[in-house]
């Protein structure tokens, strides 16, 4: 019984790995697209450098909110690169298109979990962009502000937080995509999510510059723990901060999974599948 279960688990995992591999290869096939996205991020980082170097000059100190100019730029650059690697296309757009075209009905009938299949494809699709973006922003930051010191543990644990953050972002955008079963067009809902992430996710204004109460609220919301916290830990590692981020991330993964599963189950009631 046990060896059979092992084989079955291995087969299950192989299916999802294959889905990730296909998405990876189809994304990596268009290097011009990957590089053109990097151009936008690079330009944005250059603008951030202009804004924050003027800010640091006007304040007159070396540090604002515990971060130096170099650290701040690295945090913003990494946050931008992580977030930009996840889209476009966003998972909500993909699910919405599947629902609109009717492909959703075929996909849910296939012998795999709809949610895990999309998670695997999403990770596979994001990896080439993530690699190019991170390499690109590192080069831009090195030119603008030079290197910063990081330890092996900060890189390892920061990457762990990034993985958990990717799952949180996936679960929430996936739920938005599933809402197409009720509201037809999810563009507005997605853009609301994206823009809340822009403000409360520290993508332009780091959380360290927020007023006290707003900062403590933002740190507990899923928007900041998706990408900003991982970038912050990679640049300026701190164990108490790490454990606090992990706690919030685990909570939002459970909450996100519950929301996605509920949306999926309820949505399935309104789907009619005909043979043929």
């Amino acid at each position: 019984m046990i060896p059979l279960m092992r084989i079955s688990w291995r087969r299950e995992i192989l299916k999802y790995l294959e889905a990730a591999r296909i998405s990876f290869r189809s994304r990596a096939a268009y290097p011009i697209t990957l590089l053109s996205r990097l151009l936008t991020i690079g330009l944005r980082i250059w603008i951030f450098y202009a804004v924050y170097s003027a800010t640091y000059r006007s304040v007159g100190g070396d540090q604002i909110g515990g971060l130096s100019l170099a650290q701040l730029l690295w945090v913003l650059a990494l946050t931008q690169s992580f977030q930009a690697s996840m889209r476009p296309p966003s998972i909500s757009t993909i699910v919405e298109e599947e629902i609109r075209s009717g492909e959703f009905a075929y996909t849910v009938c296939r012998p795999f979990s709809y949610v895990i299949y999309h998670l695997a494809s999403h990770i596979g699709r994001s990896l080439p962009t993530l690699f190019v973006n991170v390499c690109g922003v590192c080069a831009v930051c090195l030119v603008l502000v030079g290197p910063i010191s990081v330890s092996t543990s900060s890189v390892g644990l920061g990457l762990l937080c990034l993985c958990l953050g990717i799952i949180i972002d996936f679960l929430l955008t996936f739920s938005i995509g599933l809402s197409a079963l009720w509201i037809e067009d999810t563009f507005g809902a997605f853009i609301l999510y994206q823009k809340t992430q822009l403000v409360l996710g520290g993508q332009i204004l780091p959380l360290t510059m927020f007023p006290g109460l707003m900062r403590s609220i933002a740190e507990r919301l899923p928007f900041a723990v998706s990408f900003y916290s991982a970038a912050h830990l990679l640049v300026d590692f701190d164990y108490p901060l790490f454990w606090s981020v992990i706690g919030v991330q685990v909570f939002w993964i459970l909450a996100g999974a519950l929301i996605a599963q509920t949306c999926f189950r309820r949505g399935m009631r309104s789907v009619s599948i005909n043979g043929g």
Partner: protein
Amino acid sequence: MLGNCINCLRLSFELFKLSFLSELEYRFSFFVKVLGIFANDITFLLIWYLYFMRFPDLNGWHFKETLVLLGLSATSYGWVLMILRGLTQLARTICRGELDYYLSFPVHPLSLHAVSRTDIGSIGDILYALIVFGLYPDRSLAFIVWFLVLAFFGGLVFAAFLILSQSIAFYVANFEDAAEQLWWSMIAFCLYPQSVFDGALRLVMLTVFPAFFMCSLPVAALLEFSWTKLALVASFASCFFVLSLGVFNRGLRRYESGNLISVLR
């Protein structure tokens, strides 16, 4: 020429009306979409409000100037995206050889393609501009007129940039995604206090991404009510628009048809 323009405007109005009515079919989605675009704009207002609360002065810029910048930029690209959304899809149409359809009409293919898609959600940008007006201390009629004139010319610079950047698809294959990134980059320059742009970055804003003429100069003209600056913006916008039309027409000669039109006898 004039008749062609009037026809295009009439067609644009009809297509806009059609699009508006079809969007209203799904009212909930329509309102969420408008709200989404509105939230998109308000996001930057909120970010800069938080920023200026902590750092009231950024190279001589304050929250008041940033309000004008955000309102003017949103109105400039808002009206282009609302009425001429088709311009953002031009590279895609060229790459897929789908321009044939537009070539078969007795109006210029660019004008028809530009108005073939509208984005009603951009009403959110206009709503946002109204909020900015509400927050800005100067609400005189002169200010409103200057605002609208400068937003028109700012939008014209943006439209010309769209035509120019999307026309690169005539020369470079698979350029759709890159073309989209280019116009997002152009908008990115309009969302930050303009006082921080100097040196090489200012040079980029004057050449590769002419955002200086889309937002920096219009904002300066609006804040100072300067006729010289207005004339500069207007003349650059007109020349740049003519140049972009020339580039499109030249690129059109290289266009390779997708053979999508079949004639029945």
